[in-house]
């Protein structure tokens, strides 16, 4: 999630552009919910996650075409799309008897209880396979922060890199969602923390991943300690912390504008 956040934030040049803000995570979670409720009984359909994320991203693209050129529009349309997909997910769940829903409802809030290595192993393997691609896009991605014109002047194939980065971000975010559900705000907070820790790095992908992992572990531990002996979804804690962070970001922006 941290890595996906870093990819999209850097691409769109806006801290608000993260997979959970623009509907990618909601699309992933909707697909998993639909498959879990209607199509596969028994098995956890984690593999539906990238499918849903890709469909959500395709819808986003159909609605606003080029991400680099109009970052703000991209985010606003993404938020609307995110709401819509979330509502569809809620609707899908509401058609089922409550007794069936328990675990899946908690999962859509970002919950790690009951996650088994049956899901984690294939996801981790796929993430590992994507690592060389990450290394490949890291430097051109950093150059995109100087705008399309300057990046191209320095020899970057801008449209190709944009497309590749976006595809990577979608797959990585979807794989992250597949495990513990759409845990929100990790994707926003982790790259901010990473950039703060590594000032000289214009696109700290690996550090963002690490920060994301640490933030999630921290939130999960906090939730367990606070809610003992109950189990509360971790996503509720990240949402709480993330909400505070978002408010802080927006207020800082406003102060900058004043």
């Amino acid at each position: 999630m941290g890595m996906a956040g870093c990819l999209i934030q850097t691409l769109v040049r806006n801290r608000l552009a993260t997979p959970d803000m623009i509907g990618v995570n909601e699309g992933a979670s909707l697909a998993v919910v639909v498959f879990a409720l209607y199509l596969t009984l028994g098995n956890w359909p984690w593999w539906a996650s990238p499918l849903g994320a890709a469909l959500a991203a395709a819808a986003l693209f159909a609605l606003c075409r080029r991400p680099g050129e109009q970052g703000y529009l991209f985010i606003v349309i993404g938020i609307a799309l995110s709401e819509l997909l979330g509502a569809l997910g809620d609707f899908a769940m509401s058609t089922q008897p409550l007794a069936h829903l328990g675990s899946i409802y908690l999962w859509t809030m970002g919950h790690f209880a009951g996650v088994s290595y049956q899901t984690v192993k294939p996801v981790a393997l796929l993430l590992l396979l994507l690592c060389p691609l990450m290394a490949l896009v890291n430097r051109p991605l950093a150059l995109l922060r100087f705008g399309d014109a300057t990046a191209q002047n320095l020899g970057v194939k801008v449209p190709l890199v944009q497309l590749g980065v976006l595809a990577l971000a979608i797959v990585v975010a979807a794989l992250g969602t597949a495990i513990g559900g759409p845990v929100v705000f990790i994707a926003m907070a982790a790259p901010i923390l990473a950039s703060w820790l590594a000032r000289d790095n214009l696109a700290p992908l690996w550090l963002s991943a690490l920060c994301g992992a640490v933030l999630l572990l921290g939130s999960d531990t906090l939730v367990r300690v606070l809610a003992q002996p109950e189990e509360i979804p971790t996503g509720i804690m990240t949402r709480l912390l993330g909400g505070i962070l978002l408010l802080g970001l927006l207020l800082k922006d406003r102060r900058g504008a004043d």
Partner: protein
Amino acid sequence: MTALRAENLHFAYQDKVVLDDVSFSLPRGKLIGIVGPNGSGKSTLLKLLARQLPLQRGTVEIHGKPLLGYSLKALARELAFLPQRPVLAEGIRVEQLVQYGRHPHQGWFNQWSAEDARQVARAREVMQLDAIWQRSAASLSGGQAQRVWLGMILAQNTDLILLDEPTSALDIGHQAEVMEAVHQIAAAGRTVLIVIHDLGVAARYCDELIALADGRVQAIGPARQVMTKALVDRLYDTDVDILPAPGDGAPVIVPRRRTRALQQPTLREHPETEGMQ
């Protein structure tokens, strides 16, 4: 020796023709200015040459080889382009920004070489960036920031340098600072093609000028020969005086007031306030 040759360039955004049959060639090691009124196609021409826009019709050759024959990275070793409003990545330092100019010369297995360090050190010296080398680029004045961008372009170490109005947002002090820097780059043997809004600045610093209007080349040649009253009047649809500057005789262009405006009463102080503090 020709650094760049453009022939029969034609460019249109949908139905609107921006460039129409533009041809010229750039001699190596000269500072060449593109002047012309707003909307005459100056920036579009520069973007075409830098491959920021697709060639629709016509040919561009760089060092005798077609523009599209270069990979983007190979092109970035021959030609550097500074856009009109380059984007500063938040929090970046001057040193880093200049170092990024070396990107086209680096690959997977040669990440940072002695040559890279040499070129960056040269860019730092020529652009006089010593005092601000460790500063955050966002904290610089307009003139300093432009010098830093030029430093990055210089570190790129290309024969051809295209600059899109690098002085447009600057006051005259910073304008002179940047133009002196550009002049120095050309004097060191680079071919610099620069879009300039200010005719006086163009005539003073450039070796040659290309005058564009309505997407066509209206005049081309040595700067002081091109800059005539007849041409300026025609280009800008106005009436100007051209006087020699006291120092070096460079043409200074002053638009005349319309006759009607001259007859209007002038603003003057009230006599009763004269002599008061």
